[in-house]
C-alpha cells in the first residue's frame, strides 16, 4: 500500500482567484498556449470555462495576425 503523503496540490491555484478549473479547460489552455492567469472567467463565481479559453485563444491569434 502506498502512503502518499503529498500535500494538497495547488497546481491550478495560479489560474484564478477562484482556483478551480476543470481538466478540460486546463488541457485546452495548454494546447492553445493560453495562460489561465490572464483569462477572466465568466462561469459561476468567476470560474473559467471552455468558452473563455476559446475566446482568449481567438483574441491572441487575431492580435498576432494584425
Amino acid at each position, binding site marked *: *500500500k*502506498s502512503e*502518499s503523503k*503529498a500535500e*494538497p*496540490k495547488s497546481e*491550478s491555484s495560479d489560474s484564478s482567484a477562484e482556483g478551480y478549473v476543470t*481538466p478540460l479547460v486546463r488541457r485546452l489552455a495548454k494546447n492553445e498556449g493560453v495562460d489561465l492567469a490572464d483569462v477572466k472567467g465568466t462561469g459561476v463565481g468567476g470560474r473559467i470555462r471552455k468558452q473563455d479559453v476559446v475566446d482568449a485563444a481567438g483574441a491572441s491569434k487575431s492580435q498576432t495576425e494584425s
Partner: protein
Amino acid sequence: MADQPQEFDVLVLGGGSAGYAAALRSVQHGLTVGLIEKDKLGGTCLHWGCIPTKAYLHSAELADEARNSEKYGVKMNFEGVDMAKVREYKDGIVAGKYKGLSGLLKMRKVNVISGEGKLVSENEIEVDGTRYTGKNIVLATGSTSKTFGLPLSKKIITSTEALELDYTPKSAIVLGGGVIGCEFASAWTSFGTEVTIIEGLPSLVPNEDPSIVKQLERTFKKRGITFNTGTFFNEVKETEDGVKVTLEDGKTFEAEICLVAVGRGAVTEGFGFEDQGITLDRGFVITDERLHTGVGNIYAIGDIVPGLQLAHRGYQQGIFVAEEIAGNNPMIVEDINIPKVTYCEPEIMSVGYTQPAAEEKYGKDQIEITEYNLAGNGKSSILGTGGLIKMVGVKGGPIVGVHGIGTRIGEQVGEAQLIVNWEAYPEDVATLLHAHPTQNEAMGEAAMALFGHPLHG
C-alpha cells in the same frame, strides 16, 4: 449487381469493425462509399470475437453465481451447463447484431460489395473481375489466429472453433495466457472444464500492470485454474484420447482438447498490397501516425496496423481516417490512451501507463501510485468480489494510468478513460464524491488516496 456504382469517394476493403466504421463516418460527411467484404459484415469481432466470447462469459458468470447462490439466500439446484444451449444463445445474440449492422449500413447508403477484393492499382480494387475505383482507399482486412504451423484438428483448435463446441470438454490446455487465452480459460472453468494455461512469458496477461497480474494469478489459482508460465511450448500433438503439449524444458501436459491462443497475425497476403508499393512488416501494414500508407490515397486501419488489436481501436481508426479524408484534421488517439478490458473472471480494465512504463517515461521519483483494495468497497463486498483499483500519477501532475481488477470492474473503464485522456489531476477527481454504494466509488477512493486524503482506507 448491374446497377451497382463502381466509383466511390472512399473504397473500403474489409467490413469488420474498422472498415465499417470508416464507411459509416464517410457517408455522414456526404461521401460515396463502397465497402468490400468477402465473408460476413461485422468481421471477427461480431462473428468470432468480442460478441460471441462475451456471450459465453455471461453464461459462465451465471453458472458461477448459481454455484454460490446459497449463501445469498437464493435456493436452487445447479445442474450444469449445456454447451449446445450456450452456443444457441450466442448465435441468437450474433444474429441480432448482424441484422442490426446490415440494416444500418443499408439505411446509411453504404454500397456493400460482396467478394474478395484485390488491390490492383493505387485507386482500384478488383472483385470477381470487376474493378472498383476509390478516390481514397482504406485497407481493413483484419487478423486471424496465429498457429505457428500447429496441426489443427478436432482437438487442437483456435478460438473460432472453440465457439462452436457443443459439449463441455472435461479438460483443456490453453496455449497462451493473453487476453483471449484467459477469457476462454475463465469461461471453461466456470462451465466445469479443468483448465491448464501455458504461457511462455513470465506471467499471465503480461501487458498489464504487475499489481493486476499478481491479483489475477492469485484469483485464477483460487478458482482452480492451473498455469505454467515462463516456458514456451515445443510441440503439440494429438494422442489417442486427447492432446499432449510438450514444453521446451521437456515438461508435458495432457488434456482432452487444446486451444491455440498465441496471438493474431494480419490478413494481408495475396491481396496485392505489396505489389502497389505498400510496406508490410511481418504481415502488418506500416503507416505514418496519420494511418497513411505512403502510397497514393491509401490508408490502413484496424488489426492490420501494428499495435493494440481491439475492436474499438478499429472504430477509432476508421473514424479517424474518414475525418482525415473529409479534411477535418482529427485528433490522434495513441494506443496508450485506448481503454482495454479483459472479460475473464475477475475482469481487468486499464488505460494509460502501467507503473513500470510510467517510471520509465517520467522517472521513478516522479511517479506516485495508489492501490485501493476493493475489500473496502461496499458494493464489491455485496457482489462477493475482491480486487483493486490502481492509479499511477505524475507527482504534482496528472493521473497517467488507471488499472482495475475484480468482478464486473470492466465497466469502470469509461471514467478511467476520461481521467487519463483529459489529463485529470488527482484532486480533480477526488473533490467529486462518487455514488454510494457502487463499485464506481472505488475510483473516487483511489483518487482521494492519490491526492493524499483517503476517505475509507
